[in-house]
C-alpha cells in the first residue's frame, strides 16, 4: 500500500513538474548526451622495423600497404562491417558478405572482433610471401570454421555457398540450387582419402600437393604486390 502511494506521489510530482515547464515555456529538456560512443578508438601499429621482422614484406611495401589501410580505416582497425563493405566493392554483382565474414574470422587471429594492421599484414604475408605449405595451411584455417582441425561437409557447404553467392543471380549458365552441393561432393571425393567424412589438415595438404591445378594456382600469388 505504501509502495502504491509512493508511486502515486512520484507520478504526481512528475505531472506537476511537467505543467510548470509547460507554463514557463521550457518544455524541452536539454537531453544530456549520455550515449558517449567511444568511437575514437585509435590503434597504432607497432613500429615499422618490428613489422618488417615479423613479416616478409620490405619496408617500402609495408608503407604502401599501411597508406591504403589507413586511408580506408582512419581509426587503425577494421571492424567486420567495414571489412564487408570494402570487400563488396570488388564484387558488385553478387553478395560477398558471407565470404567476407569467413575471411574476417581468418584474419582476426586474436578473436577480438577487429582486424588491426598487424593482423592484416601478417595474413597477407603468409598468403603472398609464404611457402606453399604455409598458404595451404592458411586456406585450411579459413575453411575450418570452428577451428577444430578438420573440415566437415557442413563447413565446406557453408564456404561453398558463400563463394557461389558472390556470383550473384545473373550467371551463365543459370545457377542451380544444388551446384554448391555437387561441388562439395566432388571436393570431398578428391580430398577425403580415408572416406571418414571429414578432411584433416594432412589429407588436405597431401591432396592439394598432388593436384597440379591447385599448385599452379598457388603461383598466382607470387606477384600480387
Amino acid at each position, binding site marked *: 500500500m505504501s509502495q502504491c502511494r509512493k508511486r502515486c506521489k512520484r507520478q504526481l510530482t512528475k505531472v506537476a513538474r511537467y505543467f510548470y515547464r509547460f507554463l514557463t515555456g521550457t518544455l524541452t529538456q536539454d537531453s544530456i548526451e549520455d550515449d558517449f560512443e567511444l568511437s575514437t578508438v585509435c590503434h597504432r601499429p607497432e613500429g615499422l622495423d618490428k613489422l618488417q621482422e615479423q613479416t616478409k614484406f620490405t619496408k*617500402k611495401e609495408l608503407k*604502401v*600497404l599501411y*597508406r*591504403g589501410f589507413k*586511408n*580506408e580505416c582512419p581509426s587503425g582497425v577494421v571492424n567486420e562491417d567495414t571489412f564487408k563493405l*570494402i*570487400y563488396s*566493392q*570488388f*564484387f*558488385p*554483382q553478387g553478395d560477398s558478405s558471407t*565470404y567476407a565474414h*569467413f*575471411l574476417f574470422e581468418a584474419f582476426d587471429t586474436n578473436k577480438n572482433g577487429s582486424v588491426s594492421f598487424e593482423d592484416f599484414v601478417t*595474413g*597477407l604475408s603468409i*598468403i*603472398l610471401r609464404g611457402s606453399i605449405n604455409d*598458404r*595451404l595451411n*592458411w*586456406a585450411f584455417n579459413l*575453411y575450418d570454421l570452428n577451428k577444430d582441425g578438420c573440415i566437415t561437409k557442413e563447413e565446406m557447404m557453408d*564456404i*561453398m555457398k558463400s*563463394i*557461389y553467392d*558472390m*556470383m*550473384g*543471380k*545473373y*550467371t*551463365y*549458365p*543459370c*545457377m542451380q540450387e544444388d*551446384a554448391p552441393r*555437387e*561441388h562439395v561432393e*566432388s*571436393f570431398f571425393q*578428391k*580430398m577425403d582419402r580415408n572416406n571418414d567424412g571429414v578432411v584433416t589438415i594432412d589429407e*588436405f595438404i597431401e591432396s*592439394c600437393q598432388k593436384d*597440379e*591445378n*591447385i*599448385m*599452379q*594456382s*598457388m603461383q*598466382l*600469388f607470387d*606477384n*600480387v604486390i
Partner: protein
Amino acid sequence: MAAGVAAWLPFARAAAIGWMPVANLPMPVAPTEKNKRQDELIILNVSGRRFQTWRNTLDRYPDTLLGSSEKEFFYNEETREYFFDRDPDVFRSILNFYRTGKLHYPRYECISAYDEELAFFGIIPEIISDCCYEEYKDRKRENAERLMDDNEDNKDCKLPNMTFRETMWRAFENPHTSTMALVFYYVTGFFIAVSVITNVVETVPCGATPNQKDMPCGERYTEAFFCMDTACVMIFTVEYLMRLFAAPSRYRFIRSVMSIIDVVAILPYYIGLVMTNNEDVSGAFVTLRVFRVFRIFKFSRHSQGLRILGYTLKSCASELGFLLFSLTMAIIIFATVMFYAEKGSTSSKFTSIPASFWYTIVTMTTLGYGDMVPKTIAGKIFGSICSLSGVLVIALPVPVIVSNFSRIYHQNQRADKRRAQKVQKARLARMRISKTGSSSAFLHSKRNGLLNESLELTQLPYKMNISHQSCSEDGQKLSKTMSLLESQHHHLLHCLEKTTNHEFMDEQLYEQSYLETALQSYPSRSPSLSSQGLTGTCCSRRAKKSSQLPNASAATSGLQELSAINIQCGDPPLSTSRSSLNMRPDDPPRLNCQSGQITTAIISIPTPPATTPDGDGHTLPNPSVQNIVKVSAL
C-alpha cells in the same frame, strides 16, 4: 571502383586463396605489370602553389588529365615538376578527388569557373558527391536561367521566315513584339473591364420611375445591356477563335486553364441565346449568369502577379490541405463541446452540432458576428478557448504560404517542382550507373577480350610449369586498353568464375535468355556430341543431366572432357524450324543447329587443346561473331 578501395585490391586478390583449393579448373593467368615502377612523389605546380602527391594516387582515375599520359605535356624538365597555369583554389578540390574519391563543390566558388576547371582536368561533373551535388545543381540552374533571361531581354529579333500562324501566336503570348499585338492586348483588356463593370452595374437599382417601383438597371435598360453584352461576347469569341487557330498545339491549348476560363466566360451567353424563355429553365439561366463573373479571370493573362498567385496556391496545395484538415478537426471538436455545454440552457441557438459549426467557424476566425453566443458559464469558457486556439491554428500555415509566394515571385515562376523531380530521377540514375559501372566494365571487357584470350590460349604450352614470360606479352595486349588496376580486378573476377564454373552475365542478356529458354521445353536427348551428360537449355523444368565438372584426374579423351554445360544446342536437327524461329542471330547463348555440326567437327579433330588437361580451350561468347561456339575442352 572507389579510389580508396583500389589500395585494397591486393588484399582482395590475396583473399582469393580461399577459392583455389575448391576450384576444379585452372585459374587464368594474372596480368603483370610492365615495368614495376616504384611509387614516387610527383610535384604539381599550379600557378606557383606546389601540390605533392603519390603517382599512384593520380593513377586511380586513368581517364582524366592527371591520371593519363596527357599530363606529360605539362612536364617541366628543368624543375622536374608538372606546371599548370590554372586556379590553385579550385585545384585543391580536384586533387582531393583523387585522394578521397569524392569530388566536392566549394560554395564560395563561382559555378562557371568551377565547370571550366573540371572540363580542363577531364572530370565530369556528374561524379560530384551527394553532399555537394544539390548545391551544384541549384547554382547551375540559376545560372542557366539568368543567361536565358538575359537572352530573352536582348532578343528583339524577328525570325526571318515565320509563318503567319507563328507570328500570330507570338503576338498573343508576348504583346510587346509589335504594335498590332499591343493594340490587341489593350483592346481586349478594355473589353474585359467593360464586361465586368456591366455585370456589376446591371444589378444596381436605378432611380425609380414614377410609374414603376425601384428596379435594377438591368431590367430597365434591357436592350442597352444586351447590346453591350453581345459586343463583349463577340470580341471574346473572336479572340478565342484566333488563339485557337494560332496555337501550335491545339489539343494542348484546349486543355489549358486559360482557354477553359475563356470558354466558361462566353458560354452562358450562347446558352442563353439558345434557350427559350421558359419558366422552368429561367432559374437555371439566371444561375448561368453567375459564370459571367469568370470573365474577370481573363485578366490573369494581363497580369503576371495574378498568374504567380495562382501558381503559388497550386504549389502550396499541401499546406492549404493541412490548414483545412486541422481547421476541420478543431471545428468538430469545439462544436461538439459547445453543443453539449449549451444543451442545458433555455432558448439556446445551439440546436445541433452542425448548427454549432457556424459558431465555431465564426469564433475561430475571430469574426464574432454575435448571432450565436453561449450563455452558460461552461459554454463561455470553452468559447474563449475556441477563439484562442483558432488564432493559433490559422496562423501556423500562413508563413509557409507567404514564403512560398515570395520565393516563386523572386524566381519568376519557374516550374521548380517539375525540375526537382527530374533531378531526383537523374540522381537515382547516376547512382545506379555508378553501381553497375564496374560490373558492366568487366562484362564489356570480357566480350572484347575474348579474341586476345583465344590468342593466349593457343600459345599455351602443354606442360604444367608454364613460363609466364611467354604469355605475358599476350597479357600485355589485354591490359593495354585498361589500367593495371582494372585488369587485376577483372582477373580476380575471372578467377571466381573459374572456381564456380559459372560466368557473369549481363542482366538484360540473362532476362533475355531466361525468357527464351522458358519458352522452349524440348526433352533433352543426348546428342552425339558427348558421352557425358549434356545439359540442354538451362533453367528448364525437365530432368536435366547433371553437368559433370571434370576432375583433373579424369582427363582422358577430348570428347569426354567436353564439359557441355555451355552447349545450348541440345535440340536434335529435326526441330530446326521451331528452334530457329525462337533464336535471334545475335544472342550469344543460342546456337544454330548448323553450328552444332561445327561443334562436332571441332571435337572430332584430335587437336592438342583437347588433350591438355589444363589448357583452357574456352572461348567466350562474342555477339559480333555469330557462329563462335562455346566449347570448353578440358
